[in-house]
């Protein structure tokens, strides 16, 4: 289908964009449009004004320094995926982006757009929570910074207020001794995950020390798997896994049923992904 009529503007500055966004209740930010335009084509989303932010100077930058990676709101997923410096500083960015959509989608889709869209099955919101990313926004009330763990409220629901625009996301540099694994079960490469996991694992002497585990596709928002993190501490390959699997399944007790999988299947899938990530991290450590 075609989108219903709307008005379009392409402001030159963040201030102008915020002014237009605040002036209409059903205004929406257009960055890559790879989720918004299909929703408009389906007439699932009612939009009166589209505010295209790609002409705003500097918004497409990707900056890497010792502290981390700053991704501007208009920076495409392909651009971040190709950035070797960003991949060194935050390996999870490349690991997650490899799973995001297809080449044609990543060429237009943006990292910040995926965060603002907050699809419960998307990889990047889970990565943001796992890495303690911070989302920087500008709105009628000025600028503020929101921790990723406070940003995602539910399916397609964030802490963004009316008139606020995400200007950039900052991902802190991953410690070099931590291994990041992004893994998911999907019907086809590039499809949304039935269930997925971002794992950041510290290991030494062949055993997991600490981990940060965030599931996606198993709840309304990225889900921190606290029980599984506790159960995984001290684990090494060959040791029993039942406690870890039970803990991971318990963390995902509210996983939903849909046409693709039952809640039970999703819980089992996440448990399997946690063990797979732990084995991958331990193997990666051995090779260092």
């Amino acid at each position, binding site marked *: 289908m075609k989108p*219903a009529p709307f008005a379009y503007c392409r402001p030159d500055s963040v201030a102008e964009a915020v002014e237009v966004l605040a002036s209409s209740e059903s205004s929406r930010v257009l960055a890559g449009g790879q989720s918004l335009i299909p929703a408009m084509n389906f007439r699932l989303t009612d939009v009166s004004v589209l505010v295209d932010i790609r002409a705003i100077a500097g918004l497409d930058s990707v900056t890497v320094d010792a502290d981390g990676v700053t991704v501007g709101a208009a920076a495409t997923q392909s651009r971040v995926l190709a950035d070797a410096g960003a991949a060194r500083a935050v390996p999870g960015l490349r690991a997650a982006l490899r799973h995001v959509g297809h080449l044609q989608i990543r060429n237009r889709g943006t990292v910040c757009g995926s965060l603002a869209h907050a699809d419960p099955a998307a990889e990047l919101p889970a990565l943001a929570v796992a890495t303690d990313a911070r989302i920087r926004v500008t709105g009628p009330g000025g600028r503020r910074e929101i921790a990723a763990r406070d940003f995602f409220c539910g399916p397609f629901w964030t802490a963004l207020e009316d008139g606020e625009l995400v200007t950039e996301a900052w991902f802190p540099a991953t410690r070099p001794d931590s291994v990041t694994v992004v893994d998911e079960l999907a019907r086809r490469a590039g499809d949304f995950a039935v269930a997925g996991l971002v794992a950041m694992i510290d290991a030494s002497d062949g055993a997991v020390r600490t981990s940060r585990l965030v599931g996606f596709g198993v709840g309304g928002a990225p889900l921190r798997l606290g029980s599984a993190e506790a159960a995984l501490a001290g684990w090494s390959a060959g040791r029993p896994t039942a406690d870890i699997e039970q803990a991971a399944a318990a963390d995902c007790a509210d996983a939903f049923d849909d046409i693709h999988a039952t809640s039970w299947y999703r819980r089992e899938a996440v448990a399997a992904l946690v063990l797979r990530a732990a084995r991958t991290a331990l193997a990666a450590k051995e090779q260092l």
Partner: protein
Amino acid sequence: MTSEALTEVAVGITVNGRLSRHRVPARLLLSDYIRDVAGLTGTHVGCEHGYCGSCTVIVDGDAVRSCLMLAAQADGAEIRTVEDLADSATGALSPMQQAFHDHHALQCGFCTAGFLMTLESVDPAEWRSPERTVELLSGNLCRCTGYQNITEAVAAAWSTNHEEGGTQHG
């Protein structure tokens, strides 16, 4: 452009080397601009929500689903469509088009333009391995061939044409 919100937008878009200027509805999709305004019907519209990849074109060097982009967003962009692949003077097919023909990599042909533009946009050195080729083609749906002949065509075209993704005309 200013921050004034308009339901009709003036755009200047270069398609296959020719720049045209039009006033178009803000809601006009790039796929419909290419077919109905530029009159180039080689770009096919399948699902119109970004799933099938039939409408893939090249925008400023990158493969893009033209049904997920507004004509307004393409203002100032350079677009290449399937009509740009064959040699306009002689009609000779591009190496990839010829390989599709030789390997029977299409049946109904509806998806073919999308496949060709995806393939045209990339560096074969990065995508030549069988696993990477399959990953690349996962963004384009074909319901006739089962992909076997398509991957054979790609392997053939890229084995004899190591340095370029295809010919560059126009």
